[in-house]
């Protein structure tokens, strides 16, 4: 953190109020905890990204030549587990949510500040277990842990990986719990539900999923551990256990988990689009409702991951039908973002570029979801690169774009400094190009029939794989850039004032960086969300 005297440091804020390791590791300030999370998940993002690069390099040629088959299997397993449980799921809620929710609702902190710190330590412990797993050889079950392979056949660190995710899961549950209670109990006077920014709504919907879904994953992984450690045989088909039961329980959490990742991203994009169009978000009520609808309906569709797994024909029909229902609120969101721009006053600052990217890529990801929910087509494309491309469009194209865009948007608030705008735009462009080059060819590969999790593949798939690997290297550059200039900007960036974007929202009405208790006095809210009509235009270079 910036220790040299800066203009912002003349006033006491959460960064300069105390120094030293202890003041960070024992802090209960939600803003400091958010930064602790930022450090932790950035670390895991680059670990997971490193695995991804190795995977792409291996797939440069059809033969398995760079790493051994077992190593490859461990690479995609650890890539999945690290990215899903230690980056995607905590990213927006635990970093941006943690930092912003109390400020956005005009509170001093979360409802349970000590539990908040405890959640971070849980994620650290989970992370240490994960690192232990990786360093002692890793797990090779795929991030999905399907038995009986995971319970009876895999000869790798399955139990420690499961334990790592179990612990990380409780971190996620406690964060969700904290948010729910905070949003219910800690809103400033006048901050009614219908005045909440959509970012808060999005995190609220996410928290519901975290609280209700995660425990099912936790117990399921514990049952896998029991099978493995004591040979209980709960999922062992040789003894009458049903491996599909595992899949049901696993996807009951892990499908909604996708919404844990994407909903907060939708929240970020709503804030950004509204700010850089200088317009109230179009159809606010429907946007909030759609978030909750996605959270609820998201729990009714899990078995669409299992259409070829051997579930009953009738169950497949039911789950396919329900899957289409959840597509409706997602469509509503895309339409409303687009409509928000209509007759706006649009500037192309970096966060807005990420928001454009998000809408485009999320649309692609969402529309290909329609293919996968169509039973007849799903049979052909499930477990192929089509699925890989689809969910990377949602998770990386959607969620990571939103996360990085959000970091840019709130960076002045977090650090009190501006990031370099030109570099920001360049990085956004590189990421967008790199992403599409990486993942678009995978749609084609998938329809051609290349199965996922293949260490070596048939030569006719090579050209598309080479394109994809080329894209991945570009993407890697794109991800390193922001990290470099964010660090740079903490010392050398232009000092940011209270509200550099001219944005609406309580977080822009306090100093940058905010004081320890966020506001000098508790704000009283008398205006609606996204009150751009009554906000003075601020000169932002287009």
């Amino acid at each position, binding site marked *: 953190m910036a220790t040299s005297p800066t203009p912002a440091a003349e006033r006491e804020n959460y960064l300069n109020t105390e120094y030293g390791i202890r003041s960070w590791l024992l802090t209960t300030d939600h803003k400091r905890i958010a930064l602790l999370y930022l450090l932790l998940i950035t670390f895991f993002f680059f670990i997971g990204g490193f695995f991804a690069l190795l995977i792409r390099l291996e797939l440069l040629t059809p033969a398995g030549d760079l790493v051994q088959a077992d190593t490859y299997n461990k690479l995609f397993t650890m890539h999945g587990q690290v990215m899903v449980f230690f980056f995607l799921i905590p990213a927006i809620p635990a970093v941006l949510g943690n930092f912003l929710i109390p400020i956005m609702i005009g509170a001093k902190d979360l409802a*349970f*500040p000590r539990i908040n710190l405890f959640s971070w330590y849980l994620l650290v412990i989970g992370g240490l277990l994960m690192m232990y797993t990786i360093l002692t050889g890793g797990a090779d079950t795929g991030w999905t842990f399907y038995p009986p392979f995971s319970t009876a056949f895999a000869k790798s660190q399955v139990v420690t990986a499961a334990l790592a995710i179990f612990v990380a899961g409780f971190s996620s549950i406690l964060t969700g719990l904290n948010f729910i209670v905070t949003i219910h109990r800690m809103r400033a006077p006048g901050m009614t539900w219908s005045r909440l920014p959509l970012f808060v709504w999005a995190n609220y919907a996410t928290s519901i999923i975290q609280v*209700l879904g995660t425990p099912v994953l936790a117990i399921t992984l514990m049952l896998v551990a029991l099978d493995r450690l004591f040979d209980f045989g709960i999922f062992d088909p040789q003894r009458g256990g049903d491996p599909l039961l595992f899949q049901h329980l696993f996807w009951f959490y892990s499908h909604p988990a996708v919404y844990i990742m994407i909903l907060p991203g939708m929240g970020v994009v709503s804030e950004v689009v509204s700010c850089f169009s200088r317009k109230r978000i179009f159809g606010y009520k429907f946007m909030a409702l759609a978030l909750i609808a996605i959270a609820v309906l998201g729990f009714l569709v899990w078995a669409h991951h299992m259409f070829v797994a051997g579930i009953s024909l009738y169950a497949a029909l*039911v*789950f396919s039908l329900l899957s289409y229902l959840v597509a409706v609120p997602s469509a509503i969101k895309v339409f409303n973002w687009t409509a928000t721009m209509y007759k706006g006053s649009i500037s192309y600052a970096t966060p807005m570029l990420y928001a454009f990217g998000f809408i485009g890529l999320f649309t692609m990801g969402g529309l290909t979801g329609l293919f996968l929910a169509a039973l007849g087509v799903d049979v052909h494309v499930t477990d192929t690169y089509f699925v890989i491309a689809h969910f990377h469009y949602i998770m990386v194209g959607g969620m990571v774009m939103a996360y990085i865009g959000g970091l840019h948007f709130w960076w002045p608030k977090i650090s009190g400094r501006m990031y370099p705008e030109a570099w920001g735009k360049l990085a956004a462009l590189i990421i967008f190009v790199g992403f599409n080059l990486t993942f678009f060819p995978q749609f084609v590969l998938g329809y051609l029939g290349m199965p996922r999790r293949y260490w070596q593949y048939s030569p006719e798939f090579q050209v598309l794989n080479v394109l994809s690997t080329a894209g991945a290297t570009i993407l890697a550059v794109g991800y390193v850039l922001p990290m470099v200039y964010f660090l740079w900007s903490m010392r050398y960036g232009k000092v940011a004032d209270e509200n550099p974007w001219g944005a609406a929202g309580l977080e822009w009405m306090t100093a940058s960086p905010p004081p320890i208790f966020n506001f000098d006095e508790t704000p009283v809210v008398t205006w609606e969300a996204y009150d751009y009509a009554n906000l003075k235009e601020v000169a932002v270079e287009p």
Partner: protein
Amino acid sequence: MVGERGIMSAHVVPKKTYIAVWITLMILTVVTAAVSRIDLGKVSAIVALTIATGKALLVVLFFMGVKYISQKMTIVVIVAGIFWLAILMVLSMADYGTRLWS
């Protein structure tokens, strides 16, 4: 827990109520144990689960004080928990229950 200090309403339930609930719970336990010794076929499970749910309701309403709770939100939370468990069970059985259909 910090945020909740003094927020919960201090509704003091009379001792008599608690003891009455306790006696009912004991009676229901004896009933369910006794009934289980009679072979009622498929009805057995229904009877056992109905009694268990009755007991659980008594615990939730009185011992856990939901009957006296002033915040509607808590009730929404509880109902949500039960509803989500129902989703898990019902939709899982949508698979298992129809596997033998041809």
